[in-house]
């Protein structure tokens, strides 16, 4: 089982689905950011799995995974800063109360 590419890709797909559920369903902005991190991890797992099983991609996949991690760190920094900036104005971390543009 640990020698088949399918197992890792299915695992990545399930992890991505869990992350997308969390992003769509949670009310808390920080929970949504955590779900985004889960989805990025799922994509990284798929990249590394392809790298481990396809010889031409082997080293390149690790490089791409490291780049994805760096971009994820940048995304987390800016995302959390935006959440804190909104929190300072609205005094709530719940995204369904950010309705100023709807009124």
């Amino acid at each position, binding site marked *: 089982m*640990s020698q088949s*590419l399918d*197992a890792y890709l*299915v*695992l990545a*797909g*399930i*992890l991505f*689905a*869990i*992350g*997308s*559920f*969390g992003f*769509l*369903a*949670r*009310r*808390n*902005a*920080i*929970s949504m*950011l*955590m*779900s985004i*991190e*889960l989805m990025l*991890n799922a994509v990284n*797992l798929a990249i*590394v799995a392809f790298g*481990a*099983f*396809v010889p031409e991609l082997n*080293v390149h*996949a*690790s*490089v791409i*995974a*490291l*780049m994805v*991690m*760096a*971009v*994820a*760190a*940048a*995304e*987390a*920094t*800016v995302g*959390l*800063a935006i*959440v*804190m*900036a909104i*929190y*300072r104005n609205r005094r*709530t*971390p*719940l995204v369904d109360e950010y309705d100023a543009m709807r009124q």
Partner: protein
Amino acid sequence: MAIPDTVPLLGMSWNDVLFLLLAAGMLGCALLVVTLRDIIRCGIAMIAAFAALAGIYVLLGAPLVAAAQVLIYIGAIAVLILFAVMLTQAKNAPVRLVFQTQAIPAAVAAIVLAVIVALTVTATDWGDVGRRIATATDALARLLFNQYVLPFEVVSVLLLAAVIGGVFLAKREDRDA
């Protein structure tokens, strides 16, 4: 005393047992992340999920990616998220509703997505996919600093810009204080 080739009483190889344990742990922790009510516990479960994923990277033969996973995700991103949790969650008002009203359609969509991905992956012929091969760290370093040196520098500039932007956004403004 030598370690047997297969796990006693199960007849599976050690790699398979480790893969099953790590995969089950990672998926369980990920489910806890999206369902728990207390957001601090969500963060702790997220750290556990990242750690299990680092173990899976080791199983895949990518030790440098596993080390970077521990350093960047557990060491930097998770700690950053936990700090943001402590700065933004009001203690006196516990959140009654964890989920939005669209939680059930979201769950259906996520399950459909997982089924579609699983069916597509198992139905696709991936060509001559060989056995698992480990990634040599010295070859990785050589590639990263020769062929991929421009993306590497671009990523570092991106990180610098993100840090400056984060500081600017999160900075307390004195004029309305």
